[in-house]
């Protein structure tokens, strides 16, 4: 048993962090040049031939940097369901995708192409109109698609058994990145801000909620990495691990951001401070795909009745011919 990252994975994290801090709004092409869009794409298709653990490292850093773009949609939601020549296009940075998992579709403003679940398969949606809606989290818009019809068949609907745990694990680890950044801000503030003649971090009314925030985050991270490993290895526990991770990490990220806002006092409540953006992303993640409580209903069925937890099928956006 070895639950640590390899030195190469640690180096990847460090470089990703440095790159994103120097380039807070990277283009899709830039990510492709770094190899990020093809991490799990086979080498013969122009990818790197790695797996979901490395993608998880990147998703965590992208969450921490509040990256705006179709990485989660393309890599987290859809990638393994694409035929290999389309995966090659993703690796090359030629296209990005999003998946209409439910009626509200993420990244419709930036993703080049849209996939839908229709009947027994996953198809490319062609000829549809897109409307991008206003969202609380401005860094990750949701939208709706109208009209259009299923075009090229991308995969059988069974692919959803792979996509669902993958997307939940991706959301969970992204949530950890968001929470990590919020906690860093809060610690920085508590260690420097003075009131009543002392740095506020000395007061246990401040330091203990921060200790709890750290605790929730580390627990969330352990679950998310467990889920990521299960997804990477196609382990049979992937569905329940991913449900557990998304349930816990989504809620934990919201809590950690709330603690961070409280510890900052008034400045944490302003538009000017970055905290509200992290908070809104955390809220977005918690609400997307399935909330913590609905995932716990699946976990309960697994624990109490031994039900495998593939979860409810996504609501079809279009039915065949409709």
């Amino acid at each position, binding site marked *: *048993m070895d*639950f*640590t990252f390899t030195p190469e*994975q640690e180096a990847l994290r460090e470089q990703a962090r440095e790159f994103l801090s120097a380039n807070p709004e990277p283009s899709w092409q830039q990510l492709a040049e770094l190899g990020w869009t093809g991490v799990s794409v086979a080498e013969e298709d122009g990818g*790197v031939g790695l797996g979901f653990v490395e993608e998880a490292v990147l998703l965590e850093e992208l969450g921490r940097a509040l990256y705006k773009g179709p990485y989660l949609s393309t890599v987290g939601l859809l990638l393994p369901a694409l035929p290999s020549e389309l995966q090659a296009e993703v690796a090359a940075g030629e296209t990005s995708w999003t998946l209409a998992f439910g009626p509200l579709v993420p990244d419709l403003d930036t993703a080049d192409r849209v996939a839908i679940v229709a009947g027994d398969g996953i198809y490319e949606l062609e000829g549809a109109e897109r409307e991008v809606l206003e969202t609380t989290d401005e860094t990750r818009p949701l939208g709706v698609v109208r009209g259009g019809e299923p075009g090229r068949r991308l995969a059988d609907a069974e692919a959803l058994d792979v996509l669902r745990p993958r997307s939940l694990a991706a959301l969970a680890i992204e949530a950890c990145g968001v929470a990590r950044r919020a906690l860093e801000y809060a610690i920085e503030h508590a260690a420097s801000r003075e009131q009543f003649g002392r740095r506020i971090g*000395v007061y246990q009314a401040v330091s203990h909620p921060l200790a709890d925030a750290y605790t929730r985050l580390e627990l969330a991270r352990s679950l998310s990495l467990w889920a990521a490993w299960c997804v990477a290895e196609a382990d049979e526990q992937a569905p329940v691990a991913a449900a*557990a991770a998304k349930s816990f990490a989504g809620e934990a990220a919201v809590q950690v951001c709330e603690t961070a806002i409280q510890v900052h006092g008034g400045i944490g409540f302003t538009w000017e401070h970055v905290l509200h953006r992290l908070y809104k992303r955390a809220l977005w993640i918690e609400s997307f795909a399935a909330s913590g409580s609905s995932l716990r*209903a699946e976990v309960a069925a697994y*624990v109490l009745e031994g039900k495998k937890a593939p979860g409810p099928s996504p609501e079809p956006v279009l039915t065949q011919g409709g």
Partner: protein
Amino acid sequence: MRATLANAARANALRSEAMDLRDTPDEAAFRAELRTWIEDNLPEELQGHRGGAARFEGEEMRAWSRALYDAGYSGLTWPKEYGGGGAPYTHQAIFLEEMARAEAPPHVGVIGLGMAGPTIIAHGTEEQKSRYLAPILSAEEIWCQGFSEPGAGSDLAGVRTSARLEDGHFVVDGQKVWSSFAHLADHCILLTRSDPESSRHAGLTYLIVDMKAPGVEVRPLTQITGEAEFNEIFFSGVRVPAENLLGDVGGGWQVAMTTLLHERGTLGFALQAALEVQVRKLAALARDRGADPLQRDRIAREWIEMQAVRFTNYRSLSQLVKTGMPGPEGSISKLVWSEANQRVTKLALELLGPDAALWDGSAPYGGYWQYQQLRSRGNTIEAGTSEVLRNIVAERVLGLPKSR
């Protein structure tokens, strides 16, 4: 960066050190052998006991501990030269997991194996090592810990029990509390103040005290469960030979820190394994007596949190195996476990409905949950209160300014 990814791909292809949550072949073999051994050797009457120190009093517990020793499962990670197994920490983790899964009671030498032994290995003289270590492993001698005092709980540096050096002996006077196993113990690891002029961390001296020596009196403390799991110890002019000094005179604080490091370090896996059993029993209870949707939500929450503690321990352990230092995330496992165990046991009482008010033989399942729930209130106090543990996380992990 593409180069970094390519390097990662090459390293991954070798699979030499990639993340892997499965047992290695060596770990799997150890686990399988151990599981069979427990099945073949654990007497039925010792299985699934509800806990408490009273269970250590019977001769069958010594026999069980002796059997563990004979099979080579005592002191797995201790160096071979002191009779240990010289095994990696992963084996110790597997041992604790399998013991908990089989609901097997632990070796009777909890304090000796987890605290006194490692402290003697780190700070003891060769004479002390050859005198004390082997009987700990074989369960011939039981140890207790004399750290806390009425005036020194979380603030251990307030210790007042005195040790005066007088013709080749330390003469010890004072009182210790919350000492588990003291009523059974042969020896005590005792933290004393040897310099009456000193204060706080200076002037403390760490001694090994014979619990059968004249002037040692043990009085059981009955706790919330009605059992006496721990004790008060009174020392009146107890003469301790000078060679029973552990470390240096005045250097007791450093030695005590070794003990506490081991207390918290080895605890994580035992606690996590115990929580796994507790959640498994909670699920069985829910299947037995039914659970409404809100209760199902809370059961799922506890199952998820139990997995979170488990994988946090795995992360910390892997880091320890790789670098010799446990990861910082390990410092949260006792804190999280104690609060989880309190919630799980209380949820079990809720599932029991009005039967929750019954006790012992009158209660369903022999009163297992009632006992567990009351006992769990100690979890956030013993071995470092949750308040102290949160201070440790805030100051040592997060680097916040010290609160005192």
